[in-house]
């Protein structure tokens, strides 16, 4: 379901281009929003349970359908969402009120726009661009404006620290992420996500699926650099220094509560979804089946894409509950002195590989 399809469909009904465009955008925006909300609710529940099992706890067991008190805490996140919505939404007296109220929406818009280009299957994609990869990377960095805005407007020293750290971190890690996503673009020769995924059909080395990650050693390394940089871009442990709980209380989110905070939360999980989606599309064959030629009907495509994406999100959760947090200078060291040189070398290596092997 693409926007273009809807626009064409409305255009066929009559000659009202503006109305047709607006209707198409709104109709295709609703499922994105639903996916975002559903993603946050499911991911928060899963994160709670995953962290609980990793920590030898049982996690939420209260709210949920059942005969008595409820089972497995299935509705815990829903209850939390309701709590956040009815909670008092405080705006500090000394804050810059306009920017303070503005910031959550900018962060949300960044995440929301990224979701539009995620290729769920060969037909399920809201907007199919010819520059999809570039688009996701670009809108992904809108969020940092909102973060700096939130940190500055809060008029709180902790928020300011969090915002400055976050800006430095996200801008720095976009470079290795961008440099390593160039590798699949070089391999496939396109920035269109659908074409990128289609180029990954068939097999490589005889048995492995022809995913870009398996194509050659350089792409293999590029995947890991991209994935780690993506984790850093979403501000998750071990790169959660902008909101480092034990240092900065809650970083740039310190002064936020209620619905505005919920928007931050929603955006964080949506960002995880988008960067994992890009990693899956760029390196792990997108909606292609891991067994070439089998299980590749339309339903299976969605299954494979979501399966790979959930696996990556699980790995992010695994990171979070295992690793300590880096210090801000160590973070920059890893980015500028390790990842960027390797990513540069990778581009060079892939170029030569393509030249020799085709």
């Amino acid at each position, binding site marked *: 379901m693409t926007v273009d399809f809807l626009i064409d469909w409305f255009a066929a009904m009559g000659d009202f281009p503006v109305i047709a465009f607006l209707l198409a955008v709104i109709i295709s925006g609703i499922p994105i929003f639903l996916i975002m909300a559903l993603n946050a609710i499911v991911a928060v529940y899963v994160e709670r349970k995953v*962290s609980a099992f*990793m*920590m*030898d*706890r049982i996690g939420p067991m209260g709210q949920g359908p059942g005969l008595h008190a409820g089972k497995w805490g299935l509705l815990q996140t829903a209850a939390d969402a309701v709590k956040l919505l009815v909670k008092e939404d405080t705006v500090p007296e000394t804050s810059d009120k306009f920017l303070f109220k503005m910031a959550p929406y900018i962060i949300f818009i960044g995440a929301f726009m990224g979701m539009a280009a995620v290729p769920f299957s060969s037909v399920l994609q809201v907007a199919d661009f010819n520059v999809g990869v570039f688009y996701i990377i670009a809108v992904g960095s809108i969020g940092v404006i909102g973060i700096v805005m939130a940190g500055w407007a809060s008029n709180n*020293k902790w928020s300011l*620290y969090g915002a400055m750290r976050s800006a430095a971190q996200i801008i720095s890690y976009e470079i290795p992420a961008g440099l390593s996503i160039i590798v699949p673009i070089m391999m496939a020769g396109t920035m269109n996500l659908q074409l990128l995924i289609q180029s990954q059909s068939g097999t490589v080395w005889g048995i492995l699926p022809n995913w870009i990650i398996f194509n050659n050693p350089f792409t293999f390394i590029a995947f890991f650099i991209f994935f780690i940089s993506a984790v850093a871009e979403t501000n998750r*442990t*071990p790169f*959660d*220094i902008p909101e*480092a*709980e*034990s*240092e*900065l*209380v809650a970083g740039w989110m310190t002064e936020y509560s209620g619905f505005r905070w919920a928007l931050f939360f929603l955006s964080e999980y949506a960002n995880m979804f988008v960067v994992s989606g890009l990693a899956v599309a760029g390196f792990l064959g997108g909606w292609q089946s891991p067994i070439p030629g089998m299980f590749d009907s339309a339903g299976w495509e969605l299954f494979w894409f979501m399966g790979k994406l959930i696996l990556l999100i699980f790995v992010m959760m695994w990171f*979070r*509950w*295992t*690793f*300590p*947090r*880096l*210090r*801000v*200078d*160590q973070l920059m060291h890893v980015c500028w002195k390790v990842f960027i040189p390797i990513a540069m070398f990778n581009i060079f290596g892939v170029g030569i590989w393509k030249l020799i092997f085709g």
Partner: protein
Amino acid sequence: MGIVQGDQMILNIGPQHPSTHGVLRLEVRTDGEIVSEIKPHLGYLHRCFEKHSENVTYEQVIPFTDRCDYLASMNSNFGYVVAMEELMEIKVPERVDYIRIIMGELNRIASHLLALGVYGLDIGAFTPFLYMFRDRERILDMFELTCGARLLYNYMWVGGVSHDLPKDFEKICIGFLDYFEPQIKEYNNLLTYNKIFIERTADVGVIPADVAVSYGVTGPNLRGSGVKWDVRKDEPYSIYDRFEFDIPVGEGQFGTLGDCFDRYWVRMLEISQSVKILRQALKDIPDGNVHQALPKKIRPPKGSVYRRTESPRGDLGYYIVSDGTPVPYRVKMRSPAFTALSCLDEVSRGWMISDVIAILGSLDIVLGEIDR
């Protein structure tokens, strides 16, 4: 703090902050992330322990000692009763000595587990904290079995202990130790040898041995700087001279001697040594009455005593002055966490805010004991 110049900023860490280990306020002068001066503000948890003690009888002081170092109440009790017995020249039955050492070492393990787990939390690792709390819980269960309380025990009395050990305590305790010893390896694999953890702690917050000594830093913090000083070994009290155990000191294995990692690592090694003491004590514990030497009314002779003991945080000293009445004339507590905190300013200058949190965590302070 003086005038703030140029790019500098005064930042208040606390009193409400996740990593101040209680209600401590640090007034930090920073230039960006770099810290140039720290001024700790104390007293948010001041409960007049020493003044209170001058108005209650000697037995009634013991529950107050619980509330000083609430993470190692047994060791707080221990110091006080040992000092009192020295003042009154009482000899306690052997079983009492053994029970006290078992309880003291169990509480040392519990306290170190909390210190290490919370240190992981300060660095950003959540899971080790929960693992260590899980095991600490079993120690608290044993305390509950013995004296009914889980945090503030009021267990050791002058001349004895409040309750004898419950039936089968030895078996339960050995069972716990057998379960617990392999867990230490798990902690090490999960946290200690983690590359990020080492990066964050090694070479950070170095306390050289001479600085540590001149500030009066004691306990694992001093031993982390490579000074082999442990009251249990060097000035043995109770029956610590009967047990075989080592005093682990820092070696600077991943960085400089006396860094945060060394202080962390000394605590980890001390847990194993406590297990060793516990095994010996549980093997040799004699039968007997635990109330035998208990005086009906405590009325020490005129005089004074200063006795220091090794609490999980260092030299815990009690200075008790008696004027012959049932009420102490003066009780002074020498708090190891207080002296440890005093060197924070010198140690953390020039480090980043994240490092200040790491250094503060590695000192393992308990505000109940600092403010008293």
